[in-house]
């Protein structure tokens, strides 16, 4: 009864406090959903390759800097149990040609060799057209094709080349669908990599031998990192860590701004209601009852702000997905995200309400009743 009416007494102030909390929570939800979306796409990308192991240069901070040489590949192939090593290269192409074609600022390119297992994964029943065979052909992810307005048979000018769209694929990794597949040689030439590649997808004859083959490769090819394909996303942990840090910094800023907003509102509420609090105490309300009343008001601001923030966060992230080039941003909403947002909202409520509530509860009824 009192809690809601007291908050409605100063509607604008309450609304601003609610918005302060909501914006913080919305930022947490939106950034977390986008970060989780990126991680989910990365995991799907490697699991869909169906490779058992992945090889790349040891001691590189960024996978894009990895250079696995032809000689290293041959030595891996010589390890008993290895069936195939599919070469993979990567490049983010940003060129006027792309912008002119479909207002696309950049295109994530995956270099593949024709005829390899890694290339064949795109022929998954969703492929329109055919797999690429030559250097002047390109496979577009279906989102990239939509962004660029291209269909199989169309041509696309960028990287100082004219590509013919051989096919349009669809995989489970959103940012792969927003990218394109080209012949490895295209990226190797563009980046002057020679015949080296960034990441090798290793297929084994017998899956039960994975551990043994992994160790054999490590022993046979010094300087090469070998890991299970499903564990490759862990090598991006530094980059992913930045996302986590970013979300936590946003959370911290939200706690500070939202908490100060709630704190300010509740302190003003208390200072305006000293006589009223004195009356409550005079008619028998105990200190804990007054504390609970004021605390509940602040906490309710955070709860409403939290619920509103969740809705705004989801809406904001989806608006971002809608307006960003297709495939660039992908969102995943997990219980953990909503749990984290709820915890932050609760912390805001506690941080912002406890001190004003404590102050109110410590008011002497006599002094409070005399208050002008």
């Amino acid at each position, binding site marked *: 009864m009192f809690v809601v009416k007291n908050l409605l*007494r100063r509607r604008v102030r309450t609304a601003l406090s609610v918005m302060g909390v909501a914006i913080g929570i919305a930022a947490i939800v939106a950034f977390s959903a986008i970060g989780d979306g990126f991680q989910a796409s990365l995991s799907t990308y490697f699991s869909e390759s169906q490779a058992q192991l992945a090889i790349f240069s040891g001691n590189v901070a960024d996978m894009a800097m990895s250079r696995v040489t032809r000689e290293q590949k041959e030595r891996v192939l010589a390890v008993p149990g290895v069936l195939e090593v599919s070469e993979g290269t990567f490049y983010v192409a940003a060129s006027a040609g792309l912008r002119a074609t479909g207002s696309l600022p950049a295109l994530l390119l995956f270099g593949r060799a024709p005829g390899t297992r890694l290339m064949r994964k795109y022929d998954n029943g969703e492929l329109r057209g055919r797999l690429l065979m030559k250097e002047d052909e390109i496979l577009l992810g279906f989102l990239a094709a939509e962004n660029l307005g291209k269909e199989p048979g169309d041509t696309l000018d960028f990287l100082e080349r004219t590509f013919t769209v051989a096919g349009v694929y669809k995989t489970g990794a959103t940012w792969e669908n927003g990218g394109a597949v080209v012949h490895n040689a295209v990226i190797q030439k563009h980046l002057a990599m020679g015949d080296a590649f960034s990441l090798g997808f290793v297929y084994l004859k017998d899956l039960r031998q994975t551990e043994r083959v992994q160790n054999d490769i490590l022993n046979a090819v010094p300087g090469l990192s070998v890991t299970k394909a499903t564990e490759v996303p862990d090598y991006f942990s530094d980059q992913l860590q930045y996302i986590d840090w970013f979300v936590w910094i946003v959370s911290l800023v939200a706690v500070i701004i939202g908490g100060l907003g709630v704190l300010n509102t509740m302190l003003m509420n208390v200072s305006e209601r000293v006589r009223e609090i004195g009356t409550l105490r005079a*008619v028998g309300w105990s200190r804990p009852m007054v504390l609970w009343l004021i605390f509940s008001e602040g906490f309710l601001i955070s709860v409403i702000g939290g619920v509103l923030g969740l809705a705004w966060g989801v809406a904001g992230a989806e608006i971002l997905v809608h307006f960003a080039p297709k495939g660039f941003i992908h969102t995943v909403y997990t219980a953990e995200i909503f749990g984290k947002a709820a915890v932050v909202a609760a912390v805001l409520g506690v941080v912002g309400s406890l001190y004003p509530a404590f102050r109110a509860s410590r008011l002497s009824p006599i002094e409070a009743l005399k208050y002008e």
Partner: protein
Amino acid sequence: MIRTEQLVKTYENGAIKALQGVDVAIAKGEFACIMGPSGSGKSTFLNMIGALDRPTSGRVWLNGHDLTNVPDLDRIRAREVGFVFQLHNLIPTLTAAENVEIPMFAVGRARAERQKRAAELLELVGLTHRANSIAVKLSGGERQRVSIARALANRPGVILADEPTGDLDSATGREIMKTLEQMRRESGATLIVVTHDLEVGERAGRWFRMRDGRMTEDAR
């Protein structure tokens, strides 16, 4: 029954002596009036017998409770005392009925019970038609009648009124005093009124005068 024994209240390490050994006994159901100039200690005395404050020395008994030793004065105030303030002190955003319900929260009454009791009390003070009006929309007299209804919410043994007519015109003040007396008669509670108003004093069955923290007159 209210009794005080050598009641002393000082402030600022004894520099200010608000009460200097007050001995009073007021029987259950009595209507007593306390008069005296400003600063004579009337309100301090009311705070002591109303369990709002503890004495520096001496003792206070309220309906059998020794307030000097009771650890939880809140509980005593909630169950034994009803306050009527000069400025009514209603919560402006709540309705008349909700204001009457406030003391009942302190004793843990259920919602239905609170609402029933508030309706009964508003009927007693003649404000049934204003039950759902928010406090700020009530006239001064109506607010004070709501305040009386609130004071009676938990059926207290003592009603303490500090200048209940001080903020009202004389006609409304007379109405308020009539209401207070009627409530006292019907509830059997002790009524103690602090006032400057001689007309109010004349209505009381007992009459105290205070000066410099002492009871200087006790007349019936």
